[in-house]
């Protein structure tokens, strides 16, 4: 199990135990973490699973495809260096202990 802490826009934190192999988006939904809409449920077609990953640990994540890169420019909230579509990031041991901050809006 991989521990991931989600931080809501109001600062509240919640740690979940994610299952390797799921995407971060799937792990969040399976634990009813609020703040991720995921309308297309992982097809990289909606950008409503936007999240800010811990910036000093981005290297451990799946590489970003061009499609995701393009979609991120249109997320409802500002894009930052830690921005990813959480449906495109697989849960692996490299994420253990990571914090993921959710945007104000999807």
């Amino acid at each position: 199990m991989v521990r991931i802490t989600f931080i809501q826009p109001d600062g509240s934190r919640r740690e979940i135990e994610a299952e390797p192999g799921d995407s971060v988006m799937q792990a969040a939904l399976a634990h009813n973490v609020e703040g991720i809409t995921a309308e297309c449920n992982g097809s990289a077609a909606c950008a409503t699973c936007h999240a800010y990953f811990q910036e000093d640990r981005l290297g451990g994540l799946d590489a970003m495809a061009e499609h995701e890169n393009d979609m991120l420019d249109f997320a409802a909230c500002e894009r930052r260096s830690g921005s990813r579509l959480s449906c495109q990031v697989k849960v692996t041991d490299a994420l253990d202990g990571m914090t993921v901050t959710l945007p104000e809006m999807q």
Partner: protein
Amino acid sequence: MANDPIIIIGAGQCGQKATETLRQQGYEGGLVLIGDEPHAPYQRPPLSKAFLKGEMSLERLMLKGPDYFDQFNIDARLSRWVESIDPAGRRVLLHGGESVAYSKLLLATGTRSRKIPVLPGLDLEGVHYMRTIADVQAIMQALKPETRIAIIGGGYIGLEVASALRSFKHDVTVIEGMERVLQRVVCPQLSDYFHRLHSSRGVAIHVNAVLEAIEGAGRVERIRLRDGQEIDTDMVLMAVGAEPVCELAEQAGLTIENGVSTDETCRTSDPNIYAAGDCSSFFSKRYQRHIRLESVQNAIDQGKHAAGAMLGSAEVYDPVPWFWSDQYEIKLQIAGLSQGYDRTEVEGDETEDAFAVRYFAGDRLLCVDAVNMPRAHMMARRELANLD
């Protein structure tokens, strides 16, 4: 009566979103969600994509985690069928005799696979549909490595299934009754593009091909077309579209027009009954007519809107419709509705598999179909939202 619960009929994506929104907006009263499927609300799009390919578990189809109903204090009645509504007495009658009173009622009854009314052979073993988890489980159970499949209908679902099954090298035939695949939704150039894509992956596509009969002794052995052609097959998938589930509304005397008719606030002709999602036909200011959408976008957004409306909001529902379809490695994203276009413009390069078709009526942009071009899609959504 005001103390009676809000009842939502249909535990699909729309019904689920409505329950969540009601609670998020502070509604603390009774909330009953009734659905006839045995599953908690789940997403249908992967049924013809990742789930069919065995890449996604049943658990991951679910829209919410297992403790959702408890957490949100929802009285969920699954595997229950609603027989009828009594709008005057404000009650719904469940199969088995139980009747439950409501303060407000939301119809989120969705669509069902369209059935061709008189087609010889429809009852044979080996004839399948693609709407529910049960449908897909039946298909997966019946599929052997050598199974040949004939897909009736070259719409999005038919073509997605073709692409999923080709990844297992099944022998796949698509039978399309019209001149071209996806004819109702995209322009000829895109139909050609997808036709060629599927042909190049080994799918046999027959256009202008009308299915006349499914034949076999007890189980499917072949299909026969109107022109006399016979095609041997082991399985038939009927993917000829969906129809709104509106018998409850009809029997309750609500106005029906290609779906349960609502105004721009999701309210039906009965002030205590609302409708949203695939089953609802709502007045769109943007398109100046009643439209009925079958998409996740609409299930989610209209579910939210209807929830707000039941709590007294007068906000108008008039979305920019959008949709996506995944076939092989191609991502098609659609913004707007193309019906009524008189010309198109192409952006990007079809030979590079990255292009977008823009549909216009005169100067007015109606729709953009983007193939592997997410920027064009997202820009189009903004552009369409900003048109008055």
